[in-house]
């Protein structure tokens, strides 16, 4: 670093102004960081969410039943529980003159003050939590409430006094918004001191849909007064300082620090970011959108069955797959599509895809046309009947065969795949996805070689191919992030055709499926 750096007023101005600048990141950033740091906790997120909600409900339920104090019990016994191993800092309010004789046993008024301070912006949640969980037995709670447990207690659970537990416990309490319920209860009591809370009116204690109290305007805190000595040290609460201290300090201040110096004008500026050469609202849509090109070479297999009814049931007497010499063929799927990230891990996709399917049959070419029949089903009655056809292709059983030939059962399809992809995991520049698509398909060409009803010949009949079909695609792939906006996707893919390749009136049912390896390239907008 240059030594004379600060001699220059320009650099000083820049540094000063730049250092004053701060912005609030979106929640997405923390979620992404969390998922990277704690991969084991993110799956399945729905279950965790449900567990969290259940836990909060359970905590709420338990708290309304067991954690109330008896107003007739001894104050001093309860006060002793304050001596827990909490480490925090607090600000001494010099204007708060307190009788030293009461310092070792903070009276009810201090807890009362704690509530007041929360309401009037001067209490931090951390200290408040300590106070709240060590409150006197006669502090705004039903007469039949049990005696509190010693130690650091939240919702009837005694927590070990190690740092991690304390951090988590306090955070849990703060995040559960129970503090606001307590404030509301305090206000009720203040408005009508004659009210006695009992089990019958416990619902009043934690009313539903309770928002943040209006008075809790933490932005009005004066930071300059918040450089406190500790009133709660590693050995527990210092009674002298506790008694003399205004309940005001750091955890809340920690939260407030984020907002230091933030005026409503600045906040508005941050929130209305688009005014300052930033992307407009519509760009969020663009950022989530990407287009992709992919190619999937695939090996095509098929499952052939028959559907015949009535007297002409030659198919039923033999395993049709056994009498044919069949070979899987090589096909391909390629297409263009769009993906849209609806959530951090979930993408929906749609596009246009071209499919080429191919399946091979070994047969023989005859030296003259022969007449044979294929089996069709009457749509009206459902019964099968033979339909005469002329062919020059014989199954291997036919003695008139002259020359071997490979028949290609091909189809050319255009489909519109619609589906989703879910990110299973992510590490560095590689993501692992799994997805599925539904592919309504139009077959615009191809050829079909149907085996004759006597199983001895093949009849070429492209008209027997069904025009519309439906495919299901399943895939899993690794997504390699290449630079800012390109991604390479590689992974296995399976495609299964839901309906038979042939028309309904054909007694043969062919269900092809393909197993391939997808290579995709995506690019964001």
């Amino acid at each position, binding site marked *: *670093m*240059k030594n004379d*750096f600060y*001699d*220059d*007023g*320009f*650099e000083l*101005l*820049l*540094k000063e*102004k*730049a*250092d*004053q*600048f*701060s*912005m*609030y*990141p*979106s929640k*997405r*950033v*923390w979620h*992404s*960081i*969390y998922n*990277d*740091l*704690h991969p084991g*906790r993110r799956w399945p997120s729905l279950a965790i969410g449900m567990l969290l909600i259940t836990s909060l409900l359970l905590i709420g339920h338990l708290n309304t039943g067991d954690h109330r104090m008896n107003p007739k019990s001894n104050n001093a016994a309860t006060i002793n529980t304050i001596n827990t191993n909490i*480490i*925090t*800092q607090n600000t001494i309010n010099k204007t708060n003159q307190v009788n030293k004789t009461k310092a070792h046993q903070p009276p009810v008024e201090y807890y009362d003050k704690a509530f007041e301070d929360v309401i009037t912006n001067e209490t931090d949640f*951390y200290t408040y939590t300590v106070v709240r969980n060590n409150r006197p037995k006669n502090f705004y709670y039903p007469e039949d409430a049990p005696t509190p447990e010693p130690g650091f207690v939240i919702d009837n659970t005694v927590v070990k006094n190690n*740092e*991690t537990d304390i*951090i*988590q416990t306090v*955070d849990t309490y703060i995040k559960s918004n129970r503090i606001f319920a307590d404030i509301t209860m305090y206000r009720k009591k203040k408005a009508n001191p004659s009210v006695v809370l009992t089990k019958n009116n416990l619902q009043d204690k934690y009313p539903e849909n309770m928002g943040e109290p209006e008075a809790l305007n933490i932005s009005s805190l004066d930071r300059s007064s918040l450089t406190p000595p500790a009133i709660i040290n590693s050995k527990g609460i210092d009674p002298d300082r506790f008694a003399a201290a205004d309940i005001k300090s*750091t*955890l809340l201040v*920690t*939260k407030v*620090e*984020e907002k230091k110096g933030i005026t409503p*004008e*600045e906040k508005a*500026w941050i929130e209305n*970011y688009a*005014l*300052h*050469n*930033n*992307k407009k609202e519509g760009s969020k849509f663009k*950022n989530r959108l990407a287009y992709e090109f992919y190619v999937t070479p695939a090996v095509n297999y098929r499952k052939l069955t028959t559907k015949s009814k009535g007297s002409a049931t030659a198919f039923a007497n033999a395993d049709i797959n056994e009498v044919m010499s069949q070979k899987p063929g090589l096909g391909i799927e390629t297409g263009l599509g769009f993906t849209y990230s609806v959530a951090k891990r979930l993408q929906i996709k749609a596009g246009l895809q071209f499919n080429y399917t191919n399946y091979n049959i070994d047969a023989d070419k005859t030296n003259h046309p022969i007449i044979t029949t294929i089996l069709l089903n009457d749509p009206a009655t459902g019964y099968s009947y033979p339909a005469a056809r002329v062919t020059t292709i014989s199954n291997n059983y036919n003695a008139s065969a002259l020359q071997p030939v490979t028949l290609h059962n091909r189809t050319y399809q255009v489909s519109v795949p619609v589906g989703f992809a879910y990110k299973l995991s992510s590490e560095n520049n590689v993501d692992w996805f799994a997805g599925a698509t539904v592919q309504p398909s139009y077959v615009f060409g191809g050829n079909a070689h149907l085996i004759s009803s006597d199983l001895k010949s093949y009849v070429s009949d492209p008209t027997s191919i069904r025009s519309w079909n439906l495919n299901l695609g399943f895939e899993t792939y690794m997504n390699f992030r290449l*630079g*800012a906006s390109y991604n390479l996707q590689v992974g296995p893919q399976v495609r299964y055709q839901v309906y038979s390749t042939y028309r309904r009136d054909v007694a043969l049912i062919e269900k092809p499926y393909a197993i391939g390896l997808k290579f995709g390239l995506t690019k964001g907008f």
Partner: protein
Amino acid sequence: MTEELMLIGCRKNNAAAQEALYNRFSPRMLGVCYRFAKNREDAEDMLQEGFIKVFTQIHQYRNEGALEGWIRRIVVHTCINIIKKNKKFSDSVEISQAHNIHIREEMIPSIMQAKQVVESIRLLPLGYRTVLNLYAIEGYSHKEIAFLLDIEESTSRSQYTRAKSMLEEILIRKKIIQKPRKKNLFFGNI
């Protein structure tokens, strides 16, 4: 939560402590990233990558110096790495191109001074902006900048001089600083 507690928690990979640390420093660090980035989204990506590095390397922090300074250094390096990865840096410091950039009045925000300064910096071309950020605000020397950006030290100096000149024009038009009556009232020799 105190800084000490946060550090203990982060070293134990405690999510609550990590979140507390993130909440405390992320606004300012996003401000740092924003000065380097093309837009807010890119800045958030930089912030995300930077904090992942912070949390994975937190055990290397030995309580020497301010934690914020340590975090800031990691974040700045992350920003530089991302800029270098996304675009060949030498391509982005075309001086002739930069001189031709016209700063339109409506491009200049005018609400808060700190924001004005930052937004003014962001109006500079990437190369100018990066060098100016590193030298004037982050306190790196031209030698360090040359090493970080894979450019010549002399290039860093010239980029900075031109960046200052352009920024001066912007700041004067925003009335954050006044046009000097005498030459070099605000801008002495580097």
